[in-house]
């Protein structure tokens, strides 16, 4: 970590996440994945929205954008189209990504733009004191669901897959070595990659539902997940109702920036220098 601590803005640490919050573990996993791949710090852009998870970019020493609620992917799309040479990573939460930014999420997946999205899923809106989110499991308690959540929750991996993402994986803050590997794979994938990282919120999710401390919450996460590879060999009753973790989908599709440059190659001006220079296209000779 001494090596990876250089990726942090150390004057901002210690962070303000609650004791036992899984977001720190996931941020650490991302930094370790970046360190293992040996990516250039100056070629990485981190974009986040609003929420507990989105505070992560404030602690990381890359070029970062902390944007409006749910709009992280919208900003990231603009950034990637303007500067396709940069590696764009979006750190977002479950409410930010699936509720407020749900539309941006499915359309970024549909375009298959080369962005790596890490959804830190703590099943609740932690920053605003524990309202239920679209990822709160049915029947669980939250500030705005005092008698139990009556809504069904999203399966984010299936949603991303159906919308067209080319790399979909799910990890947890309990299975950290696996999460690091998944993030490495996601960062290497050319196209829209989604890694859903289950996280624990002992302050709101744990306390409201009487799950207990951070350690009890990690045990709870461990109990409700099963490895996707192991699930194929297990009897169906052991997999019933559990979340699969690991690499869930991988495919190869044309990437949006490449396709856009290809489509507009004919009508683009051939700028020779910043002051104007030669223009290659008659149509735009204003």
């Amino acid at each position, binding site marked *: 970590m001494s090596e990876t601590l250089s990726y942090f803005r150390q004057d901002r640490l210690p962070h303000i996440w609650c004791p*036992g919050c*899984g977001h720190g573990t996931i941020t650490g996993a991302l930094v370790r994945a970046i360190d293992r791949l040996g990516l250039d710090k100056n070629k990485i852009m981190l974009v986040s929205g609003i929420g507990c998870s989105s505070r992560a970019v404030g602690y990381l020493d890359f070029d970062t954008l902390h944007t409006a609620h749910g709009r992280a992917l919208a900003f990231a799309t603009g950034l990637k189209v303007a500067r396709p040479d940069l590696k764009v990573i979006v750190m977002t939460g479950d409410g930010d990504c699936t509720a407020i930014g749900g539309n941006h999420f499915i359309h970024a997946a549909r375009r298959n733009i080369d962005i790596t999205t890490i959804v830190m899923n703590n099943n609740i809106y932690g920053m605003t004191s524990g309202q239920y989110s679209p990822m709160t499991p049915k029947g669980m308690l939250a500030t705005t669901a005092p008698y139990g959540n009556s809504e069904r929750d999203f399966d984010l991996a299936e949603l991303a897959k159906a919308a067209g993402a080319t790399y979909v994986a799910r990890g947890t803050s309990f299975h950290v070595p696996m999460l690091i590997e998944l993030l490495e794979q996601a960062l290497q994938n050319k196209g829209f990659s989604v890694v859903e990282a289950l996280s624990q919120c002992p302050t709101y999710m744990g306390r409201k539902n009487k799950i207990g*401390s951070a350690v009890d919450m990690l045990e709870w996460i461990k109990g409700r997940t099963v490895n996707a590879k192991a699930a194929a060999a297990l009897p169906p009753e052991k997999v019933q109702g559990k979340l699969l973790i690991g690499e869930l989908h991988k495919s190869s599709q044309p990437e949006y920036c490449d396709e856009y440059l290809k489509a507009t190659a004919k009508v683009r001006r051939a700028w020779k220098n910043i002051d104007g220079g030669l223009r290659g296209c008659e149509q735009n000779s204003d």
Partner: protein
Amino acid sequence: MSDKKFYRHLIRERYCKGCNICVAYCPKKVLELKDGKVFAARPDDCIGCLMCELRCPDFAIEVKPRDAAASDGADERVVDLQVPPEAHDA
């Protein structure tokens, strides 16, 4: 036991929030909480699995290899808190 490896524990007390995750998941029960901060009570038992380091949400603990002879009797009472823990590796 000649091939036993020894580890030391670099702990940033300022970062530690005492969430107990590292203590609970240490397979050898090396770590303990003391006054709400983590502390390596039995560093010689450490097997270097890094479960504490990887799961720590606060980047407060780090496990480094050490020579067997190096640091017996070094606990938090003899640590100079004015010196940041990383300085020893510089």
